[in-house]
């Protein structure tokens, strides 16, 4: 296993749109275990492949208190089931260090994904997990938390990052 380097804002590679995973082999298994190692080492609760410069639709997450429930989602997709149910959590991001921002997101989604053997799954996650999944899927679309910030804050971060 190896820790991977995390891209940080405003690196343009964070804006790339990830491609679907079609091959479920040993190298996918290696990548996901390296991503988990990187996420744990950086004390993150989620990491998208985009953030470590692999542009495939892979995310890893652990929102458990004891940091011992790793989750891997390959080709995750979701539909919003109820747009009258929202969460507003203060989100941080390993690619935008030092910044947190309260963001509203739908709490009621229908999620489909594949595991590392390619098998399909579906679920209706809620709470912190649903926020985390949506945040990581944004990364796969080339979107960052800073897309949602007021232009002023975005400027401030850019200034800090280029200092």
């Amino acid at each position: 296993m190896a820790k991977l380097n995390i891209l940080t804002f405003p690196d343009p590679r964070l804006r790339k749109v990830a491609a679907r995973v079609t091959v479920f082999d040993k190298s996918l298994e290696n990548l996901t275990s390296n991503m988990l190692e990187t996420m744990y080492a950086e004390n993150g609760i989620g990491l998208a492949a985009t953030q470590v410069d692999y542009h495939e639709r892979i995310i890893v997450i652990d929102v458990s208190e004891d940091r011992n429930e790793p989750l891997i989602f390959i080709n995750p997709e979701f539909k919003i089931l109820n747009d009258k149910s929202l969460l507003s959590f203060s989100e941080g991001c390993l690619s935008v260090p030092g910044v947190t921002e309260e963001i509203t997101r739908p709490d009621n989604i229908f999620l489909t994904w594949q595991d590392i053997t390619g098998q399909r799954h579906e679920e209706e996650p809620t709470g912190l997990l649903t926020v985390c999944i949506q945040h990581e899927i944004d990364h796969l679309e080339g979107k960052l938390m800073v897309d949602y910030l007021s232009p002023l804050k975005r400027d401030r971060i850019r200034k800090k990052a280029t200092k």
Partner: protein
Amino acid sequence: MRILFAGSPGSAAQILKNLATHECEIVGVISQPDKRSKRGGKNEPSAVSAEAIKLGIPLYNPKSIDEDFKETILQINYDFLVVSAYGKILPSWLLEHPLVAPINIHFSLLPKYRGASPIQSCLLNGDKKTGISIMKMTRGLDEGPVYSLHDHEISSLSNKIDLENELVALTNKILFKSLLAIFNSSQKPLEQDNDSATYCNKITKASGMVSFLEEEAEHIFRKFKALNGWPGLFFHRNGIDIKIHGMAVQAPQNGINISDNFTFSKDGIIIKTKDSSIVITHLQFPGKKIITASDAANSYADFFAN
């Protein structure tokens, strides 16, 4: 085409930055004086000031728009004064000095939402549509005649930050074209229909307080979206302000008695509103972590007992 720009916050800085990429000359920028930073240290310039410095445009940060400032500005010739959220009242001489017109970009479809919080207000009212107005500035509060209105559809999930970003993007798409049209065709603006004008006030901390029994569920939900980030949504109970971090509008349900104020269910804390009910799924006591409703049922049962 020569432009004098006036503005202060980040949204205005984005507009200035975009305007500077077009074929026009920005002859100067007026912005609020630097704010004294809270940690002592250096003063913090407004976002517009910072952008003007980056672009190398002459910058004016007058504490007050007095005779000295008047003398400086009257020496400059420009076709347009373009104002976006400057934050100070502008005197007549400044509005009369541009060769073509003083222009204001307002984030609503005037005469609706004159005033300080047009973005939050259209979300609070559940509007499906808003937009921007390119207006000729007068001394009154957003009362000037309008050159053009530009519609924008509001998505059902949009919060305040989303909508502001979208309206800035729309401004950047149309502002230069609009100025050019006014410049070239000496387009005349149309007076607003004052009788149908509505007004909106500045958002304060108190705007984020909910009184469940006095407000409709849908309205509470809109507040949650409109006040996201700052000030957020709070309710008051037993002398404490509790912040709401997750909520849903609850369809009337059979079998659950919501005659009580706070009812714990598997979905969250059901709370009676003026018309129906809402469910709070995540909440936060002052200085504590965000907790789920079931955590609250375990740890704060007495607190919520009637």
